[in-house]
């Protein structure tokens, strides 16, 4: 089970502004451990989904060019205060994490 992420969702006019902060090393698999000179294996988020009010609104595939502890921002029309936002990611090692928030 991955580390907790922070999900925030706020109504701004007619759309919900969603901000997601994920906790993940996003190791590219190109770095070497300076002590052992071994390549540090790649561990990175490959996919994630964002659901609002029970429907998938964003489906994403990501690679090793995304920063460690990724942050993503999305805007969703038709959402309203009180809607549940659920974010789920999975990485190349099969680890995953789900967190949610309510649209404020």
């Amino acid at each position, binding site marked *: 089970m991955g580390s907790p992420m922070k999900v925030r969702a706020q109504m701004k006019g007619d759309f919900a502004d969603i901000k997601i902060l994920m906790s993940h090393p996003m190791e590219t698999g190109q770095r070497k451990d300076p002590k052992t000179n071994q390549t540090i294996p790649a561990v990175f988020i490959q*996919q994630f989904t964002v659901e609002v009010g029970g*429907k*998938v*609104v964003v*489906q994403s595939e990501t690679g090793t*060019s995304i*920063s460690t502890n990724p942050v*993503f921002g999305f805007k969703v*029309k038709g*959402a309203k205060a009180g809607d549940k936002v659920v974010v789920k990611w999975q990485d190349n090692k099969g680890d995953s994490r789900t967190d949610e928030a309510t649209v404020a």
Partner: protein
Amino acid sequence: MDILRRTVLKGASASGVLAAALTAGLLKPTQVLAMEWNKAAFEAKDTPAAMKAVGAASAADSKDLKLNAPDIAENGAVVPVDVTSTIPNTLSIAVFIDKNPYPLSAAFNFANGAMADVALRLKMGQTSIVRAVAKTSDGKYFTASKEVKVTAGGCGG
């Protein structure tokens, strides 16, 4: 239901089907996440190859696709980029970093009210063009790009 196993990145028609399926609420996150990660696209070593792997044929520059990024990145490890498409019926946006070992950084598919608008943070190895590609429901591709400089910074205080 084989066609649903392909993500929007794999073909012109698949995205339309995926978008429709997402809109109809047919797909749950677990099903979506069970789809294959587009290895060919993410492991392509240059932007043209990566764009080909996501099915992006000739992409036309569009002023309605906006890419907001710093002129100079304070640190190449965390480069904040915003991509906004006001091109009607934009289904997806992909972001490429030309000079990275693997240019394709991420792709996003929008449905059920999600605007074609994404903020993300990139790892850049060196000064490079950052390229956004947007795909519309009629299978057309559009592009916008910006050079982001990556330099040796300072002392970190």
